[in-house]
Each structure stands twice: as C-alpha cells, then as structure tokens.
C-alpha cells in the first residue's frame, strides 16, 4: 500500500496481495519495501537530501507514477493534460514505490507524480500529525518541490456496508455502528492492527468490542454474499461502486486525510504548473471510484479513462494514439536495447578481463568468485542498489544487467582459456607465435564456442531480468507485466511475458546462428 508509506510488510510478492484494487497497492508496497533500502541510501547521500538540481528547459516533462491502478490513472491524467497543452511528455509509470518516486523527483529525473498528502506527511516527512496543504508545501519547499492543488477527493480508510444493511440498521455514519452490536463487523487483518485502523478508531468512537479479521480479497465478496455486514475499504476502491456499497461517514474525523495531488519540482516552467493546476478539485471520490472501476472491471485502459475525465472538463484528448502493436513494438525495442546495451560491454569486459587474468590462477578464481557473488544478489535488490548510484530509468537497469551478464561470460571464458590443450600451447610457442598471435590464432578461436555459450546464457538471463527493470522506470516488456500485476490483469501480464519469452528464444536462435557462422561443427558446445 504505497500511498500509506512504510507500513510493516506482510505476505509474499506480488501474487498474495489482498484484493484487486488492494492488490495494486499492496503489490506496490512490497516492491517499494524491496527498494526502500536503496532509496534510503539515496536520501542519506548528499545531493538528494539537499537542493534539487535545476530542470533542463527544452526536455520533455517527465511524468511518473507508482505501480497501482489509481496512480497510473492520475499520472495519465497529468500527462495528457500537459500534452494537450502543447508540452512534450515522457511517461515513467509504474515505479516501485513512494520512495523511488520521491527520490527521482528530488534528483530531477522525474518532474511530477501524483502523491497523497497523508503519505507525504507520514512516509516521507515522518510526521505523526496531519499537516495542512500549506504546511506540507512549506516542508517540501526547501527541497525544491511543490505540492499543487489536490485533485479533490480523499482516498482514506472508510467503513463500508451494503445498502440493505444500512437501510435496516439506519447506518450513515461510523457513530451509528456503536449501538449496532449485533452487526458482523469484519475487517482486514492489517486494519485490525494499524494505529490509524481499528485500535485508534475504537478509541475515538468508543467501540468496546473487537471485530474479527478477514483477508481483504474476500471481504467484498463476503459483503455481497451477506456473510459479513461491515468491512474496511479505501474510499476510492472501484469495488465500492461495483458492489453498490454504502460508505459510513467518519463523523468524528478520525481517519487522516489522503488527498491526492500532483507533487512537482518547483523549477517546472510556470506555464506547465499552471496547466497542471487545472485538475485541482475536479475529482470526487465517486469520480475516482468510477475511473478505477472502469479500468479494473470494464474495458477502459489508463489512457482512455484519463481522456474520458479530461473530456468531462472540456479538454479534448485522444487518450494516446499508440495501439496494441505500437506499444508492443516500443516495449520490445526498449527491451532489446536494455539487453543489448548491457550485453555488449559485458562480453567485451568479461572476455577482456578473463584474458588478462586467466594465466594467474588466483586472479581467475577471484574473478569467478566476484562475478558469482554478484549473481547471488536477488535481481530486484541489485536493481535497487543501482538507484542511489545511477538514479532511475535505463542507466541503473543497464548497469545491473551488465553485472548479471558478467558471470556466465567470465566463467565460460576463463574455463575455456585455462582448459586449452597444453600441447597446442607448447606448439604455438615453439613454432614462434608471439603472445598476441597465440591469443588471436589459438586461444581465442578455441575459447570462442564457450564464450558464445556464456554470452547466450547471459542474453537469456538478461532478457528475463530486464522485465524487472520496469520497477525502476526503465520500461521494456516489464512495463505491461508491472501494470498487469498492479491491475491483477493476466492478459496484460502476458503482453509482457509472452514477447519476453519469445525474445529469449529468438536470442537462442540468433546465437546459434552466430556460432554456426564462426565455429566449425566439431568444436561447437554440445546442446543440452
């Protein structure tokens, strides 16, 4: 649950998330936690914590989002609003969490992303109270940031019930629940434990009984089936609309505010900020529920949902012109680019370093162990480690993929070089080949099949790992996968996973072709 910041994490990632909309936020939070360590390092390191770097005029405005449904829709709204206003926009959607977005904004790699006031206060500024928008703005101003006017709705916790139950028991506010002890109030496990959940709520309203817990993914269905009467929800969940539920008003104002608003760099051109302000106050909770539901349960995508809202404000937006094949082509090209740009230097450096060290046994071992150590770092963590060093986007992803590719290449190269028949080396020396000629005409050609096999392994690993790079804004075929995870949309996941798998197979064939061209058959590495 990204917007609420660094709550303790529960459950695996990302499939055990708790509901469709909830899945988005929980999945996002889990990824965010994976990245939080790196982001924390970034926060502690000098430039990020201080003044933000100035934005470069003439470059497109970079719009980012976290990886859950509502975040995508809001970011798409911002992006289309800017585009229709004549600004060039670059989308960096689906970043792995609050801290990644915030650090990227500080570093100037992102110009704007939708944030929630409550998250800004608690997760980023570490405040316990609920500061006003003015106070928040004053707090982020020294970092060169600005919180623009809120979209209008408050995406906070609510207690929800069905219409028949509300009618029967006369429920309109949370206070109405106090006398209705016979109702089956069943809330999510997390809500049961959080300070801003049931314990605080019970103190504020004087509930002297404890509700039972339920997996949130089941709660909406349980309400619909009449198995439970009241549960907790987020106020913009699309399910509230889908199941036609009633939200009980927080009449004592217990739940903190989570007002969504564009968080921008203060040095964004004034005209762009002015443009973004046009969205202030245009979204109610009902609007947002409808937009969320349209994407989750109907045929809409983020772009069309955003375009629909803009049209209601009298702003004509095409809702993005690129169709399925266009997106697929763009993602595939990007994916290839990430992999190739990482793989080529990995081959050059992996082989080069192997050549330098293979004659010295302990150096060779050090190289293999070092590269092996890199390989043991989980890919999502390695990606996260790159953020403080290289920011977000393609650069850190490429560096991470490069490091991953080193092991198979270096190991295969060193092994091949040290296992060349010593008789051949004796002959090469005795016949008068120089060191370089021996390398060029004997060692390297003999090692080539093994080096190629290593590069092939590295390519396939990279193509797979590059799908995770979408979490740090690198794009590629991971984009639809991350979005699909956020939406629990299997079709979307497959739009990334299938081409990625095909790409891996294509890479296999390509390397086989190269091997055929370069190596006589009897020297090729045996297929397994």
């Amino acid at each position, binding site marked *: 649950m990204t917007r609420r910041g660094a709550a303790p994490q529960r459950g695996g990632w990302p499939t055990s998330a708790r509901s469709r909309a909830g899945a988005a936020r929980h999945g996002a939070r889990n990824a965010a936690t994976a990245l939080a360590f790196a982001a924390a390092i970034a926060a502690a390191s000098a430039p990020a914590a201080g003044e933000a770097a100035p934005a470069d005029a003439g470059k497109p405005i970079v719009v980012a989002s976290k990886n859950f449904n509502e975040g995508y829709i809001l970011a798409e709204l911002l992006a289309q609003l800017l585009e229709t206003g004549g600004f060039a926009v670059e989308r960096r959607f689906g970043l792995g969490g609050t801290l990644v977005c915030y650090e990227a904004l500080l570093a100037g790699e992102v110009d704007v992303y939708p944030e929630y006031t409550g998250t800004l206060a608690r997760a980023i500024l570490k405040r316990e109270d609920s500061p006003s928008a003015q106070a928040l703005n004053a707090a982020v101003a020294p970092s060169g940031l600005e919180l623009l006017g809120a979209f209008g709705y408050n995406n906070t916790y609510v207690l929800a019930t069905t219409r028949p139950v509300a009618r029967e028991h006369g429920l309109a506010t949370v206070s109405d629940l106090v006398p209705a002890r016979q109702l089956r109030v069943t809330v999510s496990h997390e809500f049961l434990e959080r300070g801003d959940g049931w314990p605080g709520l019970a103190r504020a309203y004087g509930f002297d009984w404890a509700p039972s817990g339920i997996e949130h993914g089941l709660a909406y269905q349980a309400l619909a089936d009449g198995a439970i009467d009241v549960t907790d929800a987020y106020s913009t969940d699309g399910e509230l609309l889908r199941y036609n539920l009633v939200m009980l008003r927080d009449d004592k104002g217990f739940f903190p505010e989570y007002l969504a608003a564009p968080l921008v760099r203060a040095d964004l051109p004034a005209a762009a900020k002015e443009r973004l302000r046009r969205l202030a106050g245009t979204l109610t909770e009902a609007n947002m529920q409808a937009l969320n539901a349209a994407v989750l349960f109907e045929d809409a995508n983020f772009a069309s949902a955003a375009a629909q809202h803009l049209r209601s404000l009298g702003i004509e937006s095409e809702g993005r012109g690129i169709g399925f094949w266009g997106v697929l082509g763009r993602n595939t090209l990007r994916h290839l680019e990430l992999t190739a740009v990482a793989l080529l230097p990995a081959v050059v450096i992996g082989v080069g370093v192997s050549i330098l060290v293979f004659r010295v046994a302990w150096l060779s071992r050090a190289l293999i162990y070092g590269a092996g150590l890199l390989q043991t770092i989980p890919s999502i963590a390695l990606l996260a480690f790159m953020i403080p060093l290289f920011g977000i986007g393609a650069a850190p992803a490429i560096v991470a993929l490069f490091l991953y590719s080193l092991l198979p290449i270096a190991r295969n190269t060193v092994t091949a070089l040290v296992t060349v028949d010593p*008789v*051949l080396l*004796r*002959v090469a*020396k*005795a*016949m*008068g*080949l*120089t060191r370089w*000629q021996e390398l060029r*005409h*004997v060692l390297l*050609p*003999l090692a*080539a099949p093994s080096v190629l096999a290593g590069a092939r392994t590295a390519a396939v690993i990279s193509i797979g790992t590059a799908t995770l790079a979408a979490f740090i804004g690198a794009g590629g075929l991971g984009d639809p996968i991350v979005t699909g995870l956020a939406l629990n949309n299997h079709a979307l996941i497959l739009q990334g996973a299938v081409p990625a798998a095909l790409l891996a197979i294509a890479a296999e064939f390509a390397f086989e072709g190269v091997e055929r061209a370069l*190596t*006589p058959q*009897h*020297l090729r590495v045996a297929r397994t």
Partner: protein
Amino acid sequence: MSEHCARFRDVGKRFDDLWVLRDVSLELPARHTSAIVGESGCGKTTLLQLANGVLRPDAGAIDVLGGPVPTTDVETFRRRIGYAVQGAGLFPHLTVRANVTLLARLEGWPAERIAERFEELLDEMGLAAGLADQYPIQLSGGQQQRAGLCRALMLKPDMLLLDEPFSALDPISRVELCEQFASAQRQEGVSALLVTHDMREAAQLADYLVILGEGGVLQAGATTEVIAKPHPGYVERLLNTQLGDLR
C-alpha cells in the same frame, strides 16, 4: 652454414632442486638427422626445448644455427626452427591448409607463394590434396602427423625439432611415414633433431645418435659407429634388446 646446427657445452638444467640434465656437451651435424634416444624422463624433451629457447639452461651454453639462443625477439629465431610433436598438435579449429600455412600468413608471404609451397609440401609428405580443407579431426593419425610435419617445414626452416612425431602411429604407417620424412628431409636439406625412445626409428632415420641416460649423455656419435661399438652397460643392453636382429 657451419658444420653444426647445434652445440651444447657443459649444459645443465634443473627443475627446482632436481637436475634433469648435467654436463651435456654435444655437437650435432648440420643438414643431417640426429636422434636423441633414451627412456621417458631422461631429459630428451628438455634438451629439445633448450634448443629453441622455450627453456633456458641453468649451466653451460648453447649455440643453435650459428649463434647463442637469443633472449630477445626469440619468435623470429623460432621461426627458423620447425617443430613437430607426437599426435601432431594440429590446431583443431583450423583446416589442414590453415594449420600448415599459419606462420607463412603471419609472415606476410604472398598468396601464390603460400599456395605453391603448400602444394609442394603435400606432395613431399604424401598427403592427398583433397585433405587440404579438412579439419584435423577428419584425418587419420598418420595424415595428421604428415600435416604436422608440413607445418613444421612450411617456412623452409634451417632446423627441425621433432618430439616423438612417429610414436603414436601403427607400425605400417610409421614405417611409411619415416621413409617419407627421410626423403623430405634430404630434399629440403634441413637439419633435424629427433627425440625418440625407439632405437629402431633412430637407427632408420638418424645419421648421428645421442643416447641419454642418468641425466647426461651416455654415448654420442655417428649412428654406424654407435651401433658397431656401443659403450658397455646401458647402451649395449639398449641396442641388444631393441636392435638385435638388425645388427
């Protein structure tokens, strides 16, 4: 060229504390084949590797091809000395042609000259022209060995170092190949230094015999002379057991 292709004076070589060769003094005749015979581990191969500077002596001095073994630009020196080993040591990724002509190409010989010399050698060593573009793995052991000898001879070297090149062959190909080599050696007028443990092979090919044993030279001299008057003891026993019927 001088009368000798190689001259060893009081040469010693040790690995760590173990002296493999001691007090070796030899004068090997130019343009003839000399055979170094002895049991495994007696230092035969070491002697060969001292001759082309792959190993350096720990005592004494070695002159090869009219001067001391150089310490700089040793590659140029080695290219005047062909080298062939047991099993041929052909580079598996190169065809017969590419193996044989590798050094000539590195030396920048013109293509016609390379082709001409290559065909001449195939002919001399009795290797079918059809095998030129085969890989070593497609050749029989005898064919590989012939190709290896062609490679050693490619640059028209002044001297050949042969480390048991005929040892791994079946008896028939071996006899055939020895004859072929002997004729090629005469035709090329090249000095040859053949290391072998096979007295028969040595007697067939060499004009000069060096019997190594116990870390030094047991007897050296013209082949006919050594066979006629072997030193009593090891040399005599060696000749009796291996050459009984020939003597």
